[in-house]
């Protein structure tokens, strides 16, 4: 069975809500039924086959080709299966994702992995603000799973992060790890201002020395036994994080944010 492939016919002027096109919702539908589904596109609701050319039949392996940054909510609440996006994706990629794999070859917009629960999300390009964050007003962001970003990330990475892992090979913007409750964010590149702003618990793992607020206290340099286990868990990824040469177990530990609970930590490679 070949992958169920949606090839975008032309880049839409208005945003498209792609949330109906997830594996579990299409599992029982024929290709004709899928073609007849409607997608919200601005104030219109065109059929799927009006926007996409459809080939293949495997609903557990979906490919979106010629994708655009106007396609929002790709993989919303995905609960198993695999979605591959060839090109860019819009906002809310993998929001509330519960299981499965979601991969994007291009860049991604705001709120990717927002309130994600489980699964694996890989972004080969850059990603916008609030990666793994909570929707405005909500108190819990990503609650599990793994996000890998090969490019750079915007501001507020892991805002209200509750659990799970965010791996960024490039740089992260301001307020990285803001208000996080737990979980791990690892950034190989540079980080912006206000790192870990109001973080309560959790780990920010860095390869480059950050500029830290006065509310983070230096705890000294330490050899930490959990780091080899953490890095070993990254070996399965197609990523720089799998490179044993970049792993470390000796780190400068900063505790913070002391203006909040102060149980969080920033670990910087030494």
């Amino acid at each position, binding site marked *: 069975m070949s992958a169920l492939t949606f090839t975008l016919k032309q880049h839409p002027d208005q945003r498209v809500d792609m949330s109906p096109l997830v594996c579990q919702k299409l599992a029982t539908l024929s290709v004709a039924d899928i073609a007849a589904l409607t997608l919200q596109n601005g104030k219109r609701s065109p059929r799927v086959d009006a926007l996409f050319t459809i080939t293949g039949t495997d609903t557990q392996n979906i490919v979106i080709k010629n994708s655009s940054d106007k396609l929002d909510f790709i993989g919303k609440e995905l609960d198993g299966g695999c979605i591959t996006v060839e090109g860019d994706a819009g906002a809310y990629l993998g929001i509330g994702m519960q299981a499965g794999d979601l991969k994007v070859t291009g860049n991604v917009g705001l709120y990717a992995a927002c309130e994600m629960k489980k699964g694996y999300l890989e972004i080969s390009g850059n990603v916008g603000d609030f990666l793994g964050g909570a929707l405005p007003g909500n108190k819990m962001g990503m609650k599990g799973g793994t996000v890998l970003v090969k490019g750079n990330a915007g501001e507020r990475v892991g805002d209200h992060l509750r659990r799970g892992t965010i791996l960024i090979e490039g740089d992260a913007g301001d307020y990285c790890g803001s208000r996080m409750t737990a979980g791990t964010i690892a950034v190989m590149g540079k980080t912006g201002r206000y790192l870990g702003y109001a973080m309560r618990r959790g780990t920010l793992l860095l390869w480059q020395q950050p500029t830290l607020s006065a509310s983070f206290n230096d705890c000294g340099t*330490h050899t930490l*036994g*959990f780091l*080899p*286990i953490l890095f*070993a868990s990254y070996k399965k990824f197609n990523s720089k994080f799998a490179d044993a040469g970049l792993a470390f177990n000796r780190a400068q530990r900063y505790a913070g944010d002391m203006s909040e609970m102060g149980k969080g930590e920033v670990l910087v490679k030494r």
Partner: protein
Amino acid sequence: MIINGVSIDATFAEAFPMKATRAIITAHNEKWAMISAQAMTGFATSVIACGCEAGIDRVLDPSETPDGRPGVAVMIFAMGGKGLAKQLETRAGQCVLTSPTSALFAGIDGGIRIPLGKNLRYFGDGFQIAKVIDGKRYWRIPVMDGEFLTEATTGQVDAIGGGNFLVLAESQEQALTACEAAIEEMRKIPNVIMPFPGGVVRSGSKVGSKYASLGASTNDAFCPTLKGATKTELSPEIESVMEIVIDGLSQEDINKAMRVGIQAVCDLGAANGIKRISAGNYGGKLGPFHFHLQEIMA
């Protein structure tokens, strides 16, 4: 059955169901992992009075341990899950948490999950940190030499305790030499422990006692000094009997351990004073698992 002049009794060892778990202790080097493991498995020869039976399963190469450091796998056996969990937690807290550079991990992935470091975390007084890595929860507990890293839970599985065989020899020295040879071979078998001192017990017991308060008492039928005073199992030339008790995760594990152990004893043979191999057979009062010596050695 006679092997190298050693008579193998047509009898069987009786064993009983237990609950077991395994934990992996790692440390800065093998020396300190072993010190911690020995402390954790100390005073754990028999459930009769120790609450559990424990021993070292095997030494682990750094490539086999979760954190890539030298390690030792220990196994603990108890009569029930509740008792096992209590013994595990107490021993982990007093013997591993306290041991310099140590870390503690689950040695069984499946089975019923029982707390390993889950409750030890409170020693961190609020400074402890949880990390979920690949679906496993770890606790990082700040201690004076750095951090004590422990997995939250380990697996509890059904197991068998009390597999055994008796070595009957012409002298105490010959019995001991034979048992040492057996233990050396048996320690190479995974999933079993020989919980008594050095793996050998010289005070084998029978079920019951003339004293009402005791559930077990000396196995007088195999006591050489009582040959003329009780219904003895010993022939005149036997001067010393020693027992090797085996706890294992399965019947097959215990079978293997008994086979290599008895073979090692028989290799010394009658020429070295080894006359018979027998087993603790209590007429079915002790347990449902029967390890027939002649079948094992066939």
